[in-house]
């Protein structure tokens, strides 16, 4: 004890010295010297060269603009090196809001890109992922009126997809990472396109593992969404001509059941749709007559069932992929890790759709 009391000052000096020695030469970074990308693209050309453009803010006097920094190389990590040669600032990955993959790289496979994302601890896992038509550089460079850059527009657009068309918000990077290799699951990503001088969502890209295998247009995407997601919103319509139609704002509830009969899987999807009538010129006297309302519900049910069955047939014949994540339900009931190829099994099994449709509100009145 005495020894320590005597040498207390020595210990104090040593501790101070350790701190000073460790932090000599460590300095912070000025924000002006940082390249902060809001949008990151990924592309691959026919010569197998990766192209990763960054859309970064640049600060001029008191104005904030954005600029594209391109990085091209044979491997993904080296694009960073290549990009540094063309930029005047230090790159800081992490505040990304949107990942824009071109159709080309999606068909080539996203595994390498996901790998570099999972490695980097600074990546924003909640950044949204979209597939774009054309090159990702064109998409990021495109100026949308009223917005500082296209990345912010896409970010807002994809976040609000869930309001209509039965989209559900599962297009973040972590959603993609979780879906790619999990047994019995497949990812879906929205496709965006430059159309009529604005950026627009035009469909869904269908993935098998990390590669894109098909494209569903918006009409089909709606049905896939109803079948795949729970608790989604959108408008269902019955139409005779351009004057006679009925619109119904619907909230869906979906339940799945799986049975194994004689080694063959059977899936039953039960849809419980609850509708609010938005506009109605098709059915007369719907607000007062009970039978008319019943007839409308029956008509809608038949219509939705027909659409669902068509869509399921297309999934089985054209995409040959377990788009609806049915494999996961079967695997969670009959055991995982058995080496079953769910994409194949789903195409050979029965999928039955039961639709229940009911109107909950009729609105203020009928004109």
């Amino acid at each position: 004890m005495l020894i320590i009391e005597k040498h207390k000052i020595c210990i104090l000096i040593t501790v101070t010295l350790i701190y000073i020695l460790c932090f000599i030469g460590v300095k912070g970074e000025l924000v002006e010297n940082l390249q902060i990308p809001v949008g990151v693209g990924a592309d691959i050309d026919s010569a197998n060269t990766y192209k990763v453009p960054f859309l970064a803010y640049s600060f001029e006097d008191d104005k904030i603009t954005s600029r594209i920094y391109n990085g091209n190389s044979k491997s993904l990590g080296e694009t960073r090196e290549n990009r540094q040669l063309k930029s005047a600032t230090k790159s800081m990955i992490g505040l990304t809001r949107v990942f824009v993959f071109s159709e080309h790289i999606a068909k080539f496979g996203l595994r390498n890109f996901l790998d570099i994302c999972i490695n980097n601890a600074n990546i924003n896992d909640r950044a949204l992922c979209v597939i774009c038509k054309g090159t990702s550089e064109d998409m990021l460079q495109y100026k949308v009126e009223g917005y500082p850059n296209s990345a912010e527009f896409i970010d807002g657009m994809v976040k609000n997809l869930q309001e209509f068309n039965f989209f559900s918000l599962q297009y973040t990077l972590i959603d993609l990472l979780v879906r790619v290799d999990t047994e019995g699951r497949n990812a879906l990503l929205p496709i965006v396109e430059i159309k009529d001088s604005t950026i627009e969502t035009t469909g869904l890209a269908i993935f098998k593992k990390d590669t894109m295998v098909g494209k569903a247009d918006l009409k089909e995407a709606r049905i896939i969404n109803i079948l795949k997601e729970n608790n989604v919103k959108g408008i269902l319509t019955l139409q005779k001509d351009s004057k006679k139609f009925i619109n119904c704002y619907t909230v869906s509830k979906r339940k799945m059941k799986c049975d194994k009969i004689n080694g063959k899987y059977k899936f039953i999807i039960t849809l419980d749709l609850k509708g609010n009538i938005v506009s109605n010129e098709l059915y007369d006297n719907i607000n007062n007559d009970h039978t008319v309302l019943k007839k409308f519900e029956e008509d809608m049910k038949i219509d939705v069932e027909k659409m669902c069955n068509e869509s399921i047939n297309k999934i089985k014949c054209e995409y040959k992929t377990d788009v609806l994540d049915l494999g996961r339900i079967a695997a969670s009931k009959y055991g995982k890790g058995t080496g079953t190829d769910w994409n194949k099994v789903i195409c050979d099994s029965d999928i039955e759709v039961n639709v229940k449709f009911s109107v909950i509100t009729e609105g203020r009145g009928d004109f």
Partner: protein
Amino acid sequence: MTLHGKAILEVRKINRAKDNLLTTNQFTFTLKSIMVGIATLSIPNTVIKVSKQDGWISILLGALYPLYLVIIANFMSKNFPKDNILVLSKKCFGNFIGSILNFIFISFFLFSLTLEFSGYSNVFRVYGVSFLKNYQVLLTALIPISFVAYKGIKTLGRLNEVGFYLTIALIVFPIGILAYGSFYNLMPVFGSGLNNVVKASKQAVVAYSGMEIIFLIYPFIQDRKKLLKCGLLNTSIVTFIYVWVTIGTIYYLGVETSQKYLWPVITLADSIQIPVINSFRYIFITLFSLVEFKCISTFYFAVSYGLNQSIKKVSAKIFTILLYPIIIIITMLYGNITNTNYYAEKLVPIYVIFNLTYVSIIAISIYLKRGVNYRKA
């Protein structure tokens, strides 16, 4: 000296002695903080590898190890409330063999400490301070850690008591994941087979190591009757933390994706979304270093106190100072996380087996010669 003065001195002595003792809470949370360390961040992966979605059952089974230790410690404490295991082992094996075995027992704490520290440095440099070098993190972080160990058991106990609430908050905070994951990931229960579940529980035992400190510090508890209760409470808290973390990871990420991460539990922190802050990861990892500091401090205390008990001439405080460079050097030798895990996988199971036999033999010999030879020795 007057009679009155003597009485005051006597009271002071008792107070000082009491100052050195831990309350029930402090004792429980000291045990907890030594167990919940860097292993918490990667424990889902160690069990998922073998028992897949049933990993959490393996962790429940693994809790038998600390339970066993608690029961043995309670038994020893009943017979020899004032002697820790180092004294008992000398009585049991004789002075020479006893000392050697004691050193191996203490070296376990030193080894665990360095593994823990190396793991901490790696996590922190990946997620938080990528601009710092290994030695910068090690040298600076060890100073507050050694300071707590230097101050002794009471300070440590107080720190652990305060820190416990932080740990629980940090671990339970990611409850937001319930909105994102899926129960399908956890099904079917027992789908991986009972055989694999038991096999994986061997891996889980490694995460529970550290509980051995109970044999060093049970003389410090104020109310000896509550030792069993403290031990059981601690085991259930730690088991709860591990099971929750594992279920959470499987629920949120799934079996396949979880294994792609080195520390999948940090990913759970991402589920907390605070406006302006991009990801909760940095805050989580910064707060988690405090949890980690407690853990390493407790290990540090165990080593310096254990050495002091073996070599009584040198005080625990001096050992604390002497250990500082040794810990830095050993930790630097591990290097990256793959190497650290390699040594951990090789050596920790051996130590666990050693600890189990060492503790059991002493307990058995106490049982056999109950009250006869020991009391005289």
